[in-house]
């Protein structure tokens, strides 16, 4: 009854929620509940949080760091930090944004520890991707050479991503690959939206140059 009254008051005040906002609020409540249980010592609640967010965390870590082992270590560290700082999370806060921020910070720390180790080999395709791509290539008539060319393209693009400055890479990953808005990216990175736009613009321009080289080499091979 109280909820209905509040909803009606919000409607009268013109505070309408879009379906996306409603989903976001629902997700926020869901995570707030799980976090409250995890704070109380419920290990299954924290495991549930990990189950629902692990793919997102691993994907960002893999894109930021470029290889499987570093991504696994970073993901573990992210969840340990989440557990450690559960008390600092506020229920009205966006849990995904909080999680992204921790992930980006962990990846930055890991990159600093690792130093400027940079080679193309760390962006090689994962074994599962290769396994999955082989029958797909066979079914689509793609020969082994084309499959190899695609894997090489991916490795080169990941290498290009790795050459970007850290902030530009984080902004591009969050915006283009994770689908966050510019404002959300700015909140995660604790930056201004105009700065994030500048970083994204610069990163896209650099990647375009890489892709053109790649497409030229691909076209040359085909010819």
């Amino acid at each position, binding site marked *: 009854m109280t909820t209905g009254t509040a909803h009606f008051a919000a409607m009268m005040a013109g505070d309408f929620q879009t379906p996306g906002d409603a989903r976001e609020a629902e997700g926020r409540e869901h995570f707030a509940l799980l976090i409250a249980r995890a704070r109380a010592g419920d290990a299954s609640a924290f*495991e549930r949080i990990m189950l629902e967010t692990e793919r997102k965390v691993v994907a960002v870590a*893999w894109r930021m760091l470029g290889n499987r082992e570093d991504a*696994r270590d970073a993901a*573990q560290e992210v969840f340990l930090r989440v557990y450690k700082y559960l008390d600092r999370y506020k229920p009205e806060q966006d849990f995904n944004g909080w999680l992204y921020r921790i992930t980006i910070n962990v990846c930055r720390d890991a990159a600093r520890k690792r130093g400027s180790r940079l080679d193309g080999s760390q962006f090689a395709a994962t074994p599962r991707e290769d396994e*999955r791509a082989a029958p797909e290539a066979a079914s689509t008539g793609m020969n082994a050479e084309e499959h190899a060319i695609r894997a090489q393209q991916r490795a080169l693009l990941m290498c290009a991503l790795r050459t970007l400055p850290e902030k530009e890479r984080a902004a591009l990953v969050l915006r283009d*690959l994770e689908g966050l808005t510019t404002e959300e990216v700015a909140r995660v990175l604790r930056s201004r939206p105009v700065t994030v*736009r500048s970083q994204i613009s610069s990163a896209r321009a650099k*990647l375009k140059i*890489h892709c053109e080289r790649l497409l030229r080499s691909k076209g040359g091979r085909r010819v």
Partner: protein
Amino acid sequence: MKCTRVEKFLPLYIAGDLTGRRRSRAIENHLAACEKCRRVAGEYHASRELFRAATLSPDFDGAFYEEIRNSVLAQIRRDRTPAPPSVFSRLFDVRLAYAASLASLLIAATLALHSYPSRTPEDGTRRRMIAIVNRERPATQPTIKTPRATRTGSDELTTPRPFDELARGTTGTGRRAPKRLLPKLNANIEDARNGLLSGLNTTRRTPSTAGRNPLAPPADATDRANAKEIAALAGSGGETSAQPEVSRIEIQTSDPNIRIIWLSPNREDPAQPLK
């Protein structure tokens, strides 16, 4: 809008990140008219799609994620479980350390109390120091801090060394006393010697009996007992002998209730001053 300016905004325009509806409309109009800029915009679209396709989710297998979860949960359980105390911490527990310190102090205090009487000069020289507690006697006599008597192999009673040293103007530690104190010290020793002689012949009486402790023995009885003891030490009747074989020196300490009595063999001529 010129092509250079449009190319500057294209990276943001292709993904809808450009702010300002008017600027977006201007770029849109320019792209509709400019073939070159339209081609560049197409390249941006293509590179973005290629990049997104190449960097899709890594798609690791379930064992990979399970390994992460198990590792994190194990670490959390390890952090929450308190580590068992080590042997070192058990040995050096704070409470145990306090108890051990207290026990050591008590043992040391007990040993000190037991060893203190054994340090008094009770040996074969028959030299004794008697402390008489007389609560009623005022501290009118001069206070002299007496050093500890040394043990000698002689069976005879000799004048304790501290007074010889005092008479010579030295202290028990060998230091010379100030010259201005020497006449006073000699006078005190003479007074003590005279008092000893008179005390051996007649029992000393206390000047007043007011405020006497009812549980304490009468002062007369105390002095009489002391005189008897002294006479026994001297080997003759303390009350009857006119010329005792021992000299008695009484010294009032800073505590009015403690008086130290030194017994030493009598000299041939007690009136002769000490050298």
